[in-house]
């Protein structure tokens, strides 16, 4: 009962706030919709710029900044030039540090931070493996402590565990049951609004596919 009231309240609050600021919710939703059409680093940067613009206009909202950082992390994964990867992550780092101040109790922020550390690690796994896998693991730990049900934190944890299993020659497939369970329960997690982070299902599907 309590739960129902709570969820109704959440829905109401989000509806109310949406009604209050259509000029924020509409372009945000529209910009989010453009994620699916990104084909290149330049497209992703264009998208990131839009979120930056919204973030500049809406200084109290953390979500535009979140997506801005997300775009730049994804750019570092898409970019082929090693030297550029770090410069994108430098941009992401600034936004993430701001995010942690704006929304210190938001699990999504720390899940994204973990993703960011993984980005740093990927640039040079031999040199950075030790330090950044620890940092990434700590960020996941913070995210799961704030919200043990956060599917993105769970997904990143499975990815990381499988990665280090592969590196150390143990069987990464031992994490497959976890991945399958996460995929099956993915849709149980309801983002607080349609603007909240909702990515990661594709990646879990990929992991599960790799298990077969």
């Amino acid at each position, binding site marked *: 009962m309590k739960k129902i009231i709570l969820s109704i309240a959440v829905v109401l609050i989000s509806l109310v706030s949406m009604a209050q600021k259509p000029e924020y919710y509409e372009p945000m939703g529209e910009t989010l919709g453009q994620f699916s059409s990104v084909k290149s680093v330049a497209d992703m940067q*264009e998208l990131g*710029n839009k979120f930056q613009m919204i973030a500049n206009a809406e200084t109290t909202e953390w979500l535009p900044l979140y997506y801005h950082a997300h775009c730049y992390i994804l750019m570092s994964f898409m970019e082929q030039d090693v030297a550029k990867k770090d410069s994108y992550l430098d941009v992401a780092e600034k936004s993430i540090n701001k995010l942690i101040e704006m929304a210190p109790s938001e699990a999504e922020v720390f899940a994204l931070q973990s993703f960011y550390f993984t980005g740093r690690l990927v640039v040079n796994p031999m040199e950075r493996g030790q330090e950044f896998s620890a940092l990434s693991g700590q960020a996941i730990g913070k995210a799961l402590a704030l919200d043990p049900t956060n599917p993105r934190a769970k997904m990143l944890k499975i990815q990381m565990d499988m990665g280090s299993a592969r590196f*150390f020659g143990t069987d990464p497939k031992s994490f497959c049951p976890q991945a399958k369970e996460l995929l099956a329960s993915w849709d149980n997690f309801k983002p607080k609004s349609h603007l909240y982070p909702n990515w990661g299902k594709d990646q879990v599907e990929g992991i599960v596919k790799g298990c077969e």
Partner: protein
Amino acid sequence: MKRTVISIITILISLNVFSQTIIMGKVSEENGDVLPGASAYLKGTYDGTTSNENGEFKFKSNKKGQFTLAVEFMGYEPFSRILDLKGDTIRINVTLKEAFNQLNAVTITAGTFEAGDKKRAVTITPRDMVTTAGAAGDVYGALQSLPGTTTNGESGRLFVKGGDSEESQTYIDGALVSVPYNSTAPNMATRGRFSPFMFKGTMFSTGGYSAEYGQALSSVLLLNTNDMPEEDQLDLSFLMVGVEAAGTKKWNSGAITGTLSYNNLKPYMRLVPQNYHWTNEPESTNGAISFRQKTSKTGMFKFYSSLDNGNFTVRQKNLDAGGQLTDYQLTNDNVFMNASWNDKLGEKWAINSAASFTNNKDDIHFDQTHVVKKIQANYLKSTLSYPFSEKFLLKFGGELFAKTFSQNAQISGVTHDNSFTNHTFSGFTEAQVYASSKFVTRIGARVEYSDYLNSFNFAPRLSTAYKITEKSQISLAYGWFYQNPVDDYLLYTDHIKPERADHYTFSFQSSANERIIKAELYYKDYRNLVKLTSGEFYLPTSYNNSGSGYAKGLDLFWRDKKSIKGGDYWISYSYVDAKRDYRNFPHEAIPSFTSKHNLSIVYKHWIGSLRSYPGINFKYSSPRVYNDPNSTVFNGEKMLPYRSLDVSWSFLYRQNIIFYFAANNITGFKNEFGRTYASSPDVSGNYQSSAVEPSSNRFFVLGCFITLTRRGNANQLDKIN
């Protein structure tokens, strides 16, 4: 009435629709290149776009009145201009200036090998110090794979650019380390006292260094210890020669690590053939505590303290007593403390303070001689820096170095006591000025006063760097460097002045895609070198500053982590031409510690399927000279060339268990470091001699490193992999 109002509103609205303002233009760099991907928007609105591949942007806005157009792109200074939106088309071309960013800006590279900054292209990382075959986990051993250094197998110390080993200083977290090497017998190689695992970053400067560093004629090695550990852990190391346990406890803003180790070379030396005869193989016990505490959001306090005891007895030929084997017994006790505090004072001021304390005692028995040498040294330095702007940093500070050296020698029942105490007070200031992100100049000066020698010096320093292209730069360094004469002379005289070397360094460096090439030309002018004018070394008047010398050469360095997948290699070559007239030299001559040609080739390869990181290192130094007192030519004899092929293999057995194997000189090249002679001739007028050999032809290390954490998957990858 109502209708009128409505129609007016309708008109107004439609007018509004038809009077959209179009804002368009082009974004380019100062040099005219277009900038795609820049963000152009009206501040505080959602109206904006991104520039296309031609740098062009175009967007519409329904807004009216004054708004600020912002154009931003990462790595460039943001542009903004107030526009009056009236429903027409506004054309505006925007030129963005490259933002000044110290990370991307040119850095002074003449004479320096810097490592540890994660984002910068680095030449040698702390991890390299551990994984370089041949280094066997010794900081100084690893540095000998870099250009500018000459391997002296009978010493193990650093010899840089035609300089003697005393001309190099080591600093930990900004504080001078007075006794950086372990104590050994004459002509026996030593190692550094500190484990490379302690350090996160290093800077090895082989010339032209900052005014912050004095009392070094040739080089400074700056070691920065690890910051906060990631979590609680227990590290266990088992080596053929000893065991070590280190426990780390972390809390919110600090951490403490306690380390205990015990080494005994007896079992190993019984197993592997040795060139020396040991009565008691080297044994050492070490305890250390390292503490770190964040003092504020930006501040960090570090403290390190260690207690060392080592002893051995080796049988050496007593050439002054007919060459019979005689026990050389040494016991060393060393106490070392090092503290540092770095923080910001207010918005802009930054303070770096460091202190160290050393108490070192060597107790030596050889034949009828018993010598006790004691060093007590205190060091204190504080540096303040103030950035007037991003492009102008001013730094100044003071330093106090107090040292007491005493020697008590009992020779055949007669006691000789000698000691000296010196205080060196220094002040320095330095300004670093960026004319642009392409051109930087560092200008500074240092003053020093040593009370024991009653001498005052002024030492100017100047270095610059200029970026010729995105990837390449040239750098110049010039300076005067002073250093007090060696302790063994100061024991007997205060009639001498500090020695001086002037450095002229020109370097070129180019790096791209994990490849780096560096070439450096240098000239060093030595003056005021101390000369010993007679055999009566105990007379203060036997010494003067009339010596001089020079060293010039070329250093080449090439590192490539890119061309071979999983592979990483570097090649160092140094050419040195050095001569000097100092100490007991009868005239100017090539000193025995320099090799004309020095080559080091290092290769490492990660083999994923075997979870292994093997490495190989080949070293060559052309023959050095040595003096045979039986010959009329001073320093006229040549040693064998130095050659060594070293291998190492790290194997990650589990996430937290690493096995490590290393072998030096696997092919068994014969290395010999000249001959050592009796101090006086025998009855037939000949000086007796014996060959100086390494302690063994080959050297092996086999070890296992285990890390235990709560998380269960950390390892000492940084250590050994």
